[in-house]
């Protein structure tokens, strides 16, 4: 250590060099500027009178919604059963389709990294980036309104989620077990069956139950676009401005979501 060096050290301890601080500062400034600009673009066509009016509207809405129409519950049991079926059957379809996609997408099991893997990854990304409500919107216009559209929508949406988590699990499998199975002279299918499958099964069950929980949540609103379930009643009640019924439906949806979350937590706890 020369004396020049010590004299150059600042008196106070600082975490970063001044150049790093400048870069970070510029980044923050850019973010703030961008946000302000976006805010202005976004609110260009906002009618502020409506926004200022919001507290009164909220109070009005609250007054209309408040005593929930409890007797309406008898109409809701069948749609609720349909909602449950949409979520469960949709999850089954999704998982069944996701398993092969995951094996094609995982680096260590894909037949070809150059062609098959990108296709599988594209399937995963497209399924993940399009919300189930949009899938439902499309399917209702293609195969008509009803439960089937909901099931297929949930299934298509689940592929991406399940396949992504599953292929990550496949890539993380213990290589020594796979090598041991390969060393016995097992075929490719046998390696997958005896070497990889036992390692990823707990993950697969966990992911499926987790997705089922999310699907219950999503299937409650699919009816908004005509794909069956309790959302249909929600849409019908909203259309006739029957707010007490809407309140009751919200309560039922909330209860369903809470129960499904509890069930999924219990099951996952039991499996893992």
């Amino acid at each position: 250590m020369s004396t020049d060096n010590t004299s150059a050290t600042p008196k106070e301890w600082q975490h970063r060099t001044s150049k790093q601080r400048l870069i970070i500062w510029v980044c923050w400034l850019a973010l703030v500027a961008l946000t302000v600009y976006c805010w202005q673009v976004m609110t260009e066509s906002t009618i502020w009178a409506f926004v200022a009016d919001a507290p009164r509207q909220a109070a009005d809405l609250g007054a209309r919604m408040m005593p929930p129409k409890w007797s309406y519950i008898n109409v809701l049991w069948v749609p609720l059963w349909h909602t449950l079926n949409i979520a469960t059957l949709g999850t089954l379809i999704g998982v069944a389709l996701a398993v092969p996609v995951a094996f094609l997408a995982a680096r260590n099991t894909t037949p070809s990294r150059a062609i098959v893997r990108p296709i599988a990854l594209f399937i995963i990304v497209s399924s993940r980036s399009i919300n189930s409500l949009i899938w439902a919107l499309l399917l209702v216009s293609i195969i008509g309104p009803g439960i089937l559209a909901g099931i297929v929508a949930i299934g298509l949406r689940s592929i991406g989620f399940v396949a992504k988590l599953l292929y990550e699990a496949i890539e993380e499998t213990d290589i020594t077990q796979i090598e041991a199975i390969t060393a016995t002279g097992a075929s490719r299918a046998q390696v997958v069956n005896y070497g990889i499958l036992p390692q990823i099964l707990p993950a697969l069950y966990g992911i499926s139950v987790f997705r089922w929980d999310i699907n219950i949540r999503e299937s409650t609103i699919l009816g908004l676009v005509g794909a069956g379930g309790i959302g249909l009643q929600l849409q019908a009640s909203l259309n006739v401005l029957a707010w007490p019924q809407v309140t009751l439906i919200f309560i039922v949806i909330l209860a369903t979501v809470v129960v499904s979350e509890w069930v999924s937590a219990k099951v996952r706890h039991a499996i893992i």
Partner: protein
Amino acid sequence: MSSSPGNSSAGYASADAVTNTDYPTQWRRPPTLVKDTKLRYALIIGAIVYLILAIGTVEVNWARVVEGLDRGWRFIKGFLQPDFTTRWSDIKTGMIESLTMALTSTVAGVLISIPIGIGAARNLVPPFVYRICRAIIAVSRSLQEIIIAILFVAMFGFGPFAGFLTLSFATIGFLSKLLAEDIEVVDKSQLEAIKATGASWWQLVNYAVQPQVTPRLIGLSLYRLDINFRESAVIGIVGAGGIGATLNTAIDRYEFDSAGAILLLIIFIVMLAEYSSGYARKWVQ
């Protein structure tokens, strides 16, 4: 392995001769999930009964499906040959609304969720603050975006402002929860070291907690930006602005080539966001 049954069964047979017990001659995979045989069969039967009942409720109008197949084929063709030009001005407006909504709501949501996230971390605050913040998170998380959007559209009128509020509200629940969980597992020794210097609570948060959680917070914010963009495509269906309204109109008019163009744009932007956020997270850490 079943490819060499001769060898393995011979091996087992000689073992049988020595111990004189009736071991199975073939290896069977042990049950992975439910160990109890009776319970396992009960569960399987229950599942089959449920499946039969559930599939029974699915009413399929096959005539309608066959009729729709043509439309499905047109949608696939529209996806392969998207039409960006016909509705370009609508798509552009919707996209700008969605993108601005996603960014502003993420920034607002992150700003609000930082104090709530700190308040919901058990190791930093007194129990009553903890309970209040956890209650806020629970409310925000249990209501879906679309339901909040319905209410906000009714209160604030149609347009992206209602969407902005919806997404901000949803961001708070998501981000505060993950931030709080992250704060709860920070390295205790650093907390103690800063505390030992006589630091105040603010200094503790600033010097012990903040450096440990910032990289993850930035990663989560980027992830949430991505989610908010995707959600902005949905809440437009109930009138909260964004690309969802355009998409809804396109599908209602059976303009599948425009719908395909919008969906491809959404997928493209989501992919872009995913790659760039992965890159940004690496850079931050």
